[in-house]
């Protein structure tokens, strides 16, 4: 049975929660819509190292997902890079079927980012969203290093963990949902803590359309 696969690539510690929020909220919204969904983290990666690459997976299907034992998405339809530099480092396009979507959190243009993408012929659209700026995340935007220090401390950790997408995850979720329609916007919006950034992102997406797939 076929299902839609969403793979999120993120950085250990400093953006780990952002990646988790994305897959969890999409899966939860899908279940609310009566779909079947899975969301999990990758056991191979070690997310407890600052900046180490970490993957989060989500599967959404109209029917029962029988694959309950493998945790890697072999053929992602949607790939999300929570940190822009990951575009240079990893083979995140592996296994993607034609007509896929790549969402990158960056203030660079999709045309600039395209040079780093391996196998762009498999993409139907490349979406860039300046999430750090939209969420007014000063640490991430100006001093990435301090964000890591902040995440290592326990101050305010409980509040941060309870809220879903209080920061840069909100615009990224908006970008995913709006450009792919994996779930409905009105289903997922009530879960998002940073509603202002979520709404702002809907109008601030930079979408580069590539290789349209015949319906």
């Amino acid at each position: 049975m076929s299902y839609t696969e969403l793979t999120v690539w993120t950085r250990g510690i400093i953006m780990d929660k952002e990646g988790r929020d994305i897959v969890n909220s999409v899966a939860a919204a899908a279940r609310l819509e009566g779909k079947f969904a899975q969301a999990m983290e990758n056991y191979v990666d070690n997310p407890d190292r600052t900046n180490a690459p970490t993957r989060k997976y989500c599967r959404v299907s109209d029917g029962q997902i029988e694959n309950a034992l493998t945790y890697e998405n072999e053929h992602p339809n949607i790939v999300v890079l929570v940190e822009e530099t990951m575009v240079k480092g990893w083979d995140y396009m592996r296994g993607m079927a034609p007509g896929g979507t790549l969402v990158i959190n960056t203030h660079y243009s999709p045309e600039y980012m395209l040079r780093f993408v391996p196998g762009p012929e498999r993409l139907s659209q490349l979406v860039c969203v300046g999430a750090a700026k939209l969420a007014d995340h000063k640490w991430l935007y100006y001093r990435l290093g301090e964000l890591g220090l902040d995440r290592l401390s326990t101050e305010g950790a409980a509040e941060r963990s309870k809220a879903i997408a209080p920061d840069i995850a909100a615009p990224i979720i908006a970008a995913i949902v709006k450009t792919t329609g994996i779930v409905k916007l009105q289903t997922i919006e009530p879960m998002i803590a940073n509603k202002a950034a979520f709404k702002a992102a809907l109008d601030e997406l930079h979408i580069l359309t590539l290789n349209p797939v015949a319906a």
Partner: protein
Amino acid sequence: MSTKGTHIPDWLKVPFAGITPAPSQEKGQDLFPTGNWRAIRPVYRDKLPPCNNACGTNEKIQGYLDLVKRGKYLDAYALIKEDMPFPSVTGRVCYHPCEQACNRGQYDEAISIRAVERFLGDLGQALPRDVVKAGPSNGKKVAVVGSGPAGHSAAYQLARLGYGITIFEKSPKAGGLNRGGIPDWVLPQHVLDREIERLIEIGVTIKTNTEVGKDVTWADLKNNYDACVLAVGLIEPNSARAEGENKKGVFYGLPFLRDIGMGTSKVKLGPRVAVIGGGNTAIDCAREALRQGAQEVTMITVEANTAEMPAMAEDLHDMVEEGVELLHGRAMTAVLGNGQVEALQLYPARFAGAINASPITIDREAPAQRFAVDNVIIAVGQRASLGWLPDEFKTPRGSIKIDQFGRLGATNFFAAGDVVQLGSGQPLMVVNAVGDGKRVAFNLDKVLRGEQLQPRTIAIDVIMDLNRMNMTYFPHFPRVKQSMLEPAERRSTQEEVIQAFSEEQAVEEAYRCFSCGTCNACDNCYLVCPEPCIVRSGRSNGLYKILVDYCKGCRVCIEECPTGCLEGVPELDFDTGVVRMDTAFAITPGLHGRQAAELEALAGRPAKDIENWR
């Protein structure tokens, strides 16, 4: 997870989920190209220290302080000589804008840069042969008019570029303002003589007693030379516009100093001397008057206090220490006396505008003050004598009209020094004239070689700010003071007032330099990097390299760089450094998939085969 100390069968010794060789093991690092963990790449980028920027001739001050620190005095001297022909002179007379700009001044006390420069200049003077040579001759001849700081600098730089230089000097001795405007107790004659010798040694011809307009005409300069640099300076003293200035016993500041400097002075001063003016020349005149036998010297200024005087604060302090009195807020309106100065008529006065060059408002309603003196020295500025210059190149304020490159129209004439900087807002100081001469020399060279002239610009963000440096590495340390003669002793001698640094003092002072924004090979990045990502082939600026395949972008080196020469650049700004890894710990594509196939096949094998799998 490391496999060290664990027996691992061969078939598992591939980069495998969680089981990989430690970086310390053989080929361990090859399997861990953690470079793509990095969002920010550390880059060594030297910035401009504020001292270099503030210096009139942009001496590489941080560079030579660093060399002095390492005991490489000759290299340091050679580095100064790139921009400054006479460090022994500026090491004594400079108004050191570098020290005002020094970042250390905001931390404890500025570096005594001038004293280190003097140490190096004196070292150069003692050398039997200079480190600088004339360039290979290019057969072109350039005339330089004036042998003052600007002319000297232009001639020096052009001679190094291979031009045949002739300097025309009006006075019997070369040196211009260096000789005629600076007293012996600041700059001894023999120091300047030696620097002039150095200039002659690199092939420059100096024709003294040759005045432009009289002995050499404009047409001579135009026809006999490929190009010409006019560095004639400001040689005519301004009048104070008082009545009776022609009386006996009235002197003008610059000629007064010049005659003493040239050894042609016949001045005999009375016991009471007044100096009119509040600038640096006036201060030199007042202090020189004491040494010429005056008992009471009074400086009369229009400025209402010392803070407003356009003079160097430390010279002012030394002058007051020597016993010169100050009388502020007065203007001299007449010199009284019968043929010989007996007294001055003073009125309260102030400047009409905000700056010292604005017109003076004299309060004639107030009662006049009679100030008894035997001599008066008027030092209220100088102007140029440009009778020989074609009118088209004159400006209304009495200087030479030039474009931004120091060129006179489309001619091969260039002008430099005080004669063009008058009224430009730039201080009329030796080092500014030297810098002007240097820049004009390079522009002249470009014109003669037919190259396009480029305006000189420095991006403001590359001048290093104290806030961008790591102060943890710099303990507070007081400035090394230059010893000075006692004030009472100074009044009766022409000996140098400020004493030179010893070698130990110079090194100690050089060690205080922050090396703002410039790598000084402190090895700190090399030591703090948590991964072996920084390599160096030698301990020197430019020899540190970052292994971008392994650098995780943890920023430790950037945060810990004391001088701030390391900076983080977003990785996406580089097209290079693309490494495609399959997962966090697998370097070849599909490695996990291959492992999976091998692992699946394992189940069907007999147990005894597994140990001898290959």
